[in-house]
């Protein structure tokens, strides 16, 4: 008995260590985004909001040290691009992914297993492969790289994510309600609109949110198929990192953290409530 409780204590100590391993790096960014030391970010000097002022374009005393400040216009443009791509991609991939999920779950047809395999393929493919395949394709067919190519690229693999989330919902769903609706004389479309759609709605919303978050975050595929003027936020930050580590990246990262925490929390909360 005593040995068991010892084992439990060690296990839970390990568990908290595991959580610390996950969250300490993230916390570090947040804490040091308020550090005024412009030379070594990891040595605490004093509390400041200057890095935030900088990225939001307010004047600070740092402006004299232009060395540390990158153009906020470019940052804003990248944010704006990311949002445009993510919103468009989410809309298209949600419609496409839901359509395939419905077809595969509710109809019997010859190509069903083909579609299942097709939907899994983009997920098991390393990002870089899809990135270069699309780059070759777009360039050899004269598409011209830009936001439209990023949108197409994201949609190809995010359709799969939506498909999987919606399929999971459809599998959990009670099919007898749809049958009842049909027995009561409703035609296919009415049943779909009045019964199926409301029931899969949480799955569709969940899939859409997942698609939005992944699209906002995608770096590898975007990196290959974005044109010169169409960088998204992750690609922009990747570029900043390669040019050198600057304290303002802490502030940008913290703002992004807050944003993703908010979206993810809302999504996961909705999911847990609907179950």
């Amino acid at each position, binding site marked *: 008995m005593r040995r068991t409780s010892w084992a439990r204590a060690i*296990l839970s100590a390990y568990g908290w260590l595991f959580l610390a391993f996950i969250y300490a790096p993230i916390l570090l960014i947040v804490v040091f985004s308020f550090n005024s030391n412009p030379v070594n970010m990891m040595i605490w000097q004093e509390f400041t909001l200057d890095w935030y002022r900088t990225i939001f374009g307010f004047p600070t005393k740092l402006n004299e040290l232009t060395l540390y400040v990158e153009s906020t216009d470019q940052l804003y443009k990248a944010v704006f691009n990311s949002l445009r791509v993510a919103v468009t991609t989410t809309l298209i991939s949600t419609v496409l992914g839901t359509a395939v999920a419905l077809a595969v779950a509710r109809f019997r047809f010859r190509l069903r297993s083909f579609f299942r395999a097709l939907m899994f393929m983009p997920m098991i493919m390393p990002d870089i492969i899809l990135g270069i395949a699309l780059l070759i394709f777009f360039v050899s067919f004269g598409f011209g790289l830009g936001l439209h190519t990023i949108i197409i690229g994201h949609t190809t693999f995010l359709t799969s994510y939506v498909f999987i989330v919606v399929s999971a919902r459809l599998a959990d769903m009670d099919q007898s309600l749809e049958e009842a609706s049909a027995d009561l004389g409703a035609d296919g479309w009415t049943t779909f609109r009045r019964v199926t759609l409301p029931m899969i709605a949480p799955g569709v919303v969940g899939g859409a949110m997942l698609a939005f978050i992944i699209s906002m975050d995608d770096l590898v595929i975007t990196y290959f198929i974005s044109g010169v003027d169409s960088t998204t936020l992750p690609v922009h930050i990747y570029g900043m990192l390669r040019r050198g580590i600057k304290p303002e990246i802490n502030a940008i990262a913290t703002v992004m953290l807050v944003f993703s925490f908010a979206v993810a929390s809302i999504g996961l909360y909705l999911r847990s409530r609907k179950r």
Partner: protein
Amino acid sequence: MSGTEQHAKRRTKILLAALLVGPTLFLVVFFLIPLTIMLVYSWLTPGVYGGVEWTFSHLNYGRILGWANTRYEKFDPTYLAIFFQSVRLAATTVLASLIVCYPAAFWVARMPEKRRQFFIFLITLPFFISLIVRLFAWVLILRPTGFLNQALMGLGLIGQPLEIIYTDVAVIIGMTYVFIPFMFLPLYASIEKLDESLIEASQDLGANRIQTFLRVVLPQTLPGIIGGSIIVFIPSLGNFIVPSVLGGAKVVMTGNLIEQQFLSARNWPFGAALGMIVMTAVLVLLLLYVRAVSREDRQGVTLPVAHGGAK
């Protein structure tokens, strides 16, 4: 009667076509055709000034695998060495994340239902945080002037900064950190299903802890271990962001090589051939997995992506 039945059948067909025509068109044009073109490209001759000449060439593969020996295209063992280096780094990442996540999955699985939900939420939450932000955190920690070195020097444990960033270790730490949710979820799914009575039975029959673990717990959680390993291995093998941020110029993986061919060296056919080799490795691995699963013929084992739902 049969008239309306036929009518209904036709309507079903139309509905099905309406659902599938858009997605099919989109995925054929923007997914299957690009992959096919990449395959074709890998067998073409690179043009002199970037670009491509539409003549067949097996030399792109020859340069990697050993038979190219012409004036311009020569076999260079470096490429294979980098590929095996990538396999090694990816395999080490799998092992590291397995060791890190396995006890944690046990920890969560033993919690009361409500707390469990909350902790799974906490552990999967970082998946939604930007990858580049999570990697940036490790740059801050591992740099010579970074958090870890400052802390160790402050404690007087080391005299001068350790060189961790731009090493294999940094890349493995980075990939392990980034892929934790991918490993955790499949492991958790199979540990949660673990039958406690079997463990008790094993102990009642006089097996010690290690025997129980090896004979009962490990075999039962094997599907989760294999599933998690595959979904961590695949994105690690083709990775180029982590080695480029945390490995610098010193740790090169196949992904970095591919990136160079496309964005600076501009030898697309060669880059496509490198890509095909990564893809072949992934497909072989998946095939082995599917075969192993179908041989076991166990229910509830699906493609690993279905568990983690992530790349």
